[in-house]
């Protein structure tokens, strides 16, 4: 690191790093220089001229923009002398020459940088009396964002964001001179997954969000910090609430996680919270119909029945599915409830999807999100990060684009990162293991040679046709190649990593401990010795009637299943099904009792993200009706069943977790609220009890059929929360099948025509999408789409045009 340089700003001298921008250096040392276009996370452009300051580097004072000039040793800067003030007044007067004064109806009014800086640095009056430039008032540039060109001050923040950060350059300056305007291209809506960020960084009200439009003014919002429950990286955000209703979410600049960016799903996905479909009272099925009952009645009923079943048939006859949708405290309560009260090890939060629980929770050399910044190579062999892990996508994209990190992407079709990848490899759906053994046999030399030095391997299930063990095999392969790579194993589902850390897997106990009766935490007492079943195992046992009762916690095995009939038949056979959930889902049709749960923003607690970072989430609104947090429902149930857990409050649960879960030692709410606002990565001191070393599994051979089916997750699907979001629910692509143009020609399919897709496990009609990103011989069908048929996991497929 080079020597710090000394600069003098407004008479105050301080040392800063050489090469730093003057505007940033001054701000870090307490001198705010006004600005519109400069943003901490983007490259400077010097568009708005608001940051003009007088700088003397020995050649006499000069007016320069602080955002484009780097600090130099001995620099003297004046940010508020008469000349600077005059320049600032002039800049503001020019900006306001065309900016309409419709602040009272503008969503930005009250928190607008232009408003604030016009008050602080402006001349107060304008000499311009001419009529202002007019445009058509807001034009929708996407389903979520409105553009008001009259208000735009041409700062280029949105255009730079879409080019530099999100990689969807869909919004750009058009025309020149006085006619310059920002706009989208004809027939190309601003359909970026990250469009909401441009609303957040717009320094005026030119870009506004539809869900927030005219809903409130900044001064009647209450705020609290929290983290998103959609993206498993848990981007940090601020919840803005008025009248007990969430009105918007705003990204918080968290250095290790999200750099203030949020995907639109994380930003606008709050709409489900006040959906009218939310469960708000306990429901009991009587004569086939669900009837509302009181909590005490419902709890008595459930407690007595479950108690009876445990007594008659033992804990093995009970299945507990889910638990990944709540906080760590909820998951801990469920884990303890299942083991000590229900006496069962049949618990599974992964729902049988993706890599194994041991690999997800306790993989050796677990990587951090920030590790991609200083890696030599990032290998992504997993789902399309842009679709499933947007926060990670932005970090990887930045590393490849701005920080010179080599990026290798291996996926069955084009992904959002391919345009920045140093090398890409495609493989046929189901052929992952074959490609992996080819790679270790020395083929694709130019790709494997990149896997050396500091490697971050981001691994997960890329395609439904892939064996779930592939991700672990890839990690093992990278370890063979590169020694000690950083491994980031990917999974979906809100708080899956936290749930596994709390022991919600048949072979795990809280704090990343391998299951064993002797390893039971002290307050738990005796726990069952018999190894439990995972979700597919539990569904099989249900079909064989070995399991009598099912407890679903935020889980929908039917909706998630690729063969829903199997899951629904199994649940139908269950004697007693209890569901704790926020919405009615497909599986709840089989539930005998449904208990309403509190969800996002309705409970305090902690959650753990994909790198093991524990963050605090906060309550700001009450749950609808009589909804309660999971831990409190389970606590009361345990009392009814005569084995009271006495959990008390989420904070006392957090203390209990810190005491009994080895990897969570030292994690307290105080720490997360004060000293570790960005969260703390567990284990704090580096030692974790269980270290899972990835093993290379023998893979299956790739199917040799001419046409193969690739099914993968996309950002917007038919998840129950998204389904209940007014704006986001329209964005799901629906039942579509992506086909390569040549393949389409062969099939005789054109864009939009209906095609029949048939596999061994299902068939259905899909709209054809002609897509060059999907290789020939492959059909890509986005998973879990509203109205789409389930096709099973078998990749062999037949496609015909419906006539």
């Amino acid at each position, binding site marked *: 690191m080079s020597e710090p340089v000394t600069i003098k700003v407004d008479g105050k001298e301080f040392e800063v790093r050489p090469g730093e921008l003057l505007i940033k250096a001054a701000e870090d040392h307490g001198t705010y220089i006004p600005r519109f276009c400069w943003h901490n996370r983007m490259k400077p452009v010097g568009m708005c001229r608001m940051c003009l300051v007088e700088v003397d580097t020995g050649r006499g004072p000069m007016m320069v923009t602080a955002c484009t000039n780097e600090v130099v040793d001995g620099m003297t800067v004046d940010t508020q002398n008469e000349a600077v003030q005059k320049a600032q007044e002039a800049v503001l007067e020019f900006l306001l020459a065309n900016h309409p004064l*419709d602040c*009272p*109806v503008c969503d930005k*009014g*009250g928190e607008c940088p232009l408003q604030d800086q016009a008050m602080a640095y402006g001349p*107060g*009056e304008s000499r311009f009396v001419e009529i202002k430039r007019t445009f058509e*008032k*807001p034009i929708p540039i996407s389903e979520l964002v409105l553009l008001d060109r009259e208000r735009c001050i041409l700062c280029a923040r949105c255009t730079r964001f879409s080019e530099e950060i999100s990689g969807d350059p869909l919004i750009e300056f058009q025309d020149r001179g006085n006619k310059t305007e920002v706009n989208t291209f004809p027939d190309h809506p601003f359909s970026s997954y990250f469009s909401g960020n441009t609303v957040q960084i717009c320094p005026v009200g030119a870009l506004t969000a539809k869900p927030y*439009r*005219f*809903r*409130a*003014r900044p*001064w*009647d919002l209450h705020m609290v910090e929290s983290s998103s429950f959609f993206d498993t990286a848990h981007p940090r955000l601020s919840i803005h609430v008025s009248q007990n209703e969430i009105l918007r979410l705003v990204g918080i600049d968290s250095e290790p996680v999200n750099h203030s960016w949020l995907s639109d799903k994380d930003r606008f996905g709050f709409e489900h919270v006040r959906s009218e479909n939310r469960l708000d009272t306990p429901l009991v099925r009587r004569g086939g119909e669900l009837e509302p009952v009181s909590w005490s009645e419902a709890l008595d009923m459930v407690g007595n029945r479950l108690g009876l079943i445990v007594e008659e048939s033992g804990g093995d006859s009970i299945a507990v599915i889910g638990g990944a949708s709540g906080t760590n405290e909820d998951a801990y309560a469920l884990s303890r409830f299942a083991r000590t009260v229900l006496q069962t090890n049949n618990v599974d939060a992964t729902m049988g999807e993706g890599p194994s629980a041991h690999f997800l929770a306790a993989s050796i050399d677990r990587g951090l999100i920030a590790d991609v910044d200083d890696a030599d190579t990032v290998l992504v062999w997993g789902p399309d990060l842009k679709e499933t892990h947007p926060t990670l996508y932005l970090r990887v994209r930045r590393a490849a684009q701005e920080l010179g990190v080599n990026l290798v992407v291996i996926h069955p079709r084009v992904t959002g990162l391919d345009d920045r990848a140093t090398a890409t490899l495609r493989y046929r759906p189901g052929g992952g293991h074959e490609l992996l053994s080819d790679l270790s046999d020395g083929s694709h030399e130019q790709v494997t040679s990149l896997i050396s030095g500091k490697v971050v391997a981001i691994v997960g299930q890329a395609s439904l046709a892939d064996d779930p063990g592939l991700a672990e095999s890839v990690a093992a392969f990278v370890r063979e190649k590169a020694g000690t790579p950083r491994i980031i194993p990917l999974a979906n589902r809100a708080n899956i990593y936290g749930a596994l850390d709390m022991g919600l897997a048949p072979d795990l106990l809280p704090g990343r401990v391998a299951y064993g009766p002797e390893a039971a935490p002290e307050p738990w007492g005796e726990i069952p010795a018999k190894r439990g079943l995972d979700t597919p195992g539990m569904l099989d046992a249900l079909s064989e009637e070995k399991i009598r009762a099912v407890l679903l916690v935020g889980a929908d095995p039917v909706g998630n299943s690729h063969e829903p009939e199997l899951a629904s038949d199994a649940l139908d056979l269950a004697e007693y099904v209890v569901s704790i959930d926020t919405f009615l889902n497909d599986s709840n049709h089989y539930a005998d009792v449904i208990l309403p749960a509190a969800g996002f923003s309705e409970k305090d607690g902690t959650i753990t993200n994909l790198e093991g970072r524990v963050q605090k989430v906060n309550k700001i609104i009450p749950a609808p009706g009589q909804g309660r947090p999971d831990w409190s429902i389970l606590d009361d149930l345990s009392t009814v069943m005569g084995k009271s857990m006495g959990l008390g409050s989420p904070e006392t649960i957090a203390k209990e977790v810190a005491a009994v879960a080895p990897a969570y030692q030292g994690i307290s709410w105080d720490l997360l609220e004060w000293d570790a606002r960005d969260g703390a990565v567990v284990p704090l001191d580096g030692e974790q009890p269980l270290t899972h070393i990835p093993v290379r599994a023998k893979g299956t051979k790739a199917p040799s059929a001419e046409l193969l089916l690739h099914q993968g997750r996309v950002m917007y699907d038919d998840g129950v929360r998204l389904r209940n979001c007014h704006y986001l629910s329209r964005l799901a692509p629906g039942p579509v099948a992506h086909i390569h143009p040549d393949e389409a020609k062969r099939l005789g399919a054109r864009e939009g025509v209906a095609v029949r897709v048939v596999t061994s496990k299902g068939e259905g009609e899909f709209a054809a999408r002609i897509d060059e990103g999907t290789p020939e011989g492959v059909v890509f069908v986005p998973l879990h789409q509203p109205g789409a048929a389930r096709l099973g996991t078998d990749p062999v497929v037949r496609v015909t045009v419906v006539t």
Partner: protein
Amino acid sequence: MGLLSELWRGLKVTGSTMLKTIGGSGLVTTEYPKEMRHKPQRFHGRHVLNRYPDGMEKCIGCQLCAGACPADCIYVRGKENDPESPVSPGERYGYVYEINMLRCIFCGLCVEACPTEAITMTHLFEMSTTNRQDAIYTRKELLMDESGKVPHMFPDDELADLDELNTADGWLRATAPSGVAAYEGVQMWQGTPGAASWDPEPSQEERDRASEGDDG
């Protein structure tokens, strides 16, 4: 001696007041509610929501009145205008507008904050109700009809002065919108609420010219 003269002095005040009262020139009490006292022009009474002469609502739902209110008695929510049949000019209108008169301290800051002169105060001050719910005035009660008439809460009450809502103080502004000190103390106000239109504020130059004219 003293006693009689003191008695005389005291009774002189009583007697003269009695005579003045009988004569009618010294009346202190008015026969309210049959008779109303004169109220100053800028009396702060019940609010009204105004319309433009073409019938459009002036309120744009910006919530500045609610933000300015020191008693926190105003609740406003905005909504997007239907371009086919807009409620107010522009994009936004106030679709919820409520004032809790029990909390209101009639300070008039809402009137000052309003950027469109949508809310003004009238002379009506009789707002007694028999329950708390009725003390919350909504758009229905506050908004004048399209002819410029303001709905009275007790229109059938023979004692009510229906004119109080119409002959009232309108808009009062202490300084020019630009905040230039030269405008301080130059109060501009309009004696009528509602549909009446008024001339725009004169510029500084016009004002200077006018005052020069006065001098010459």
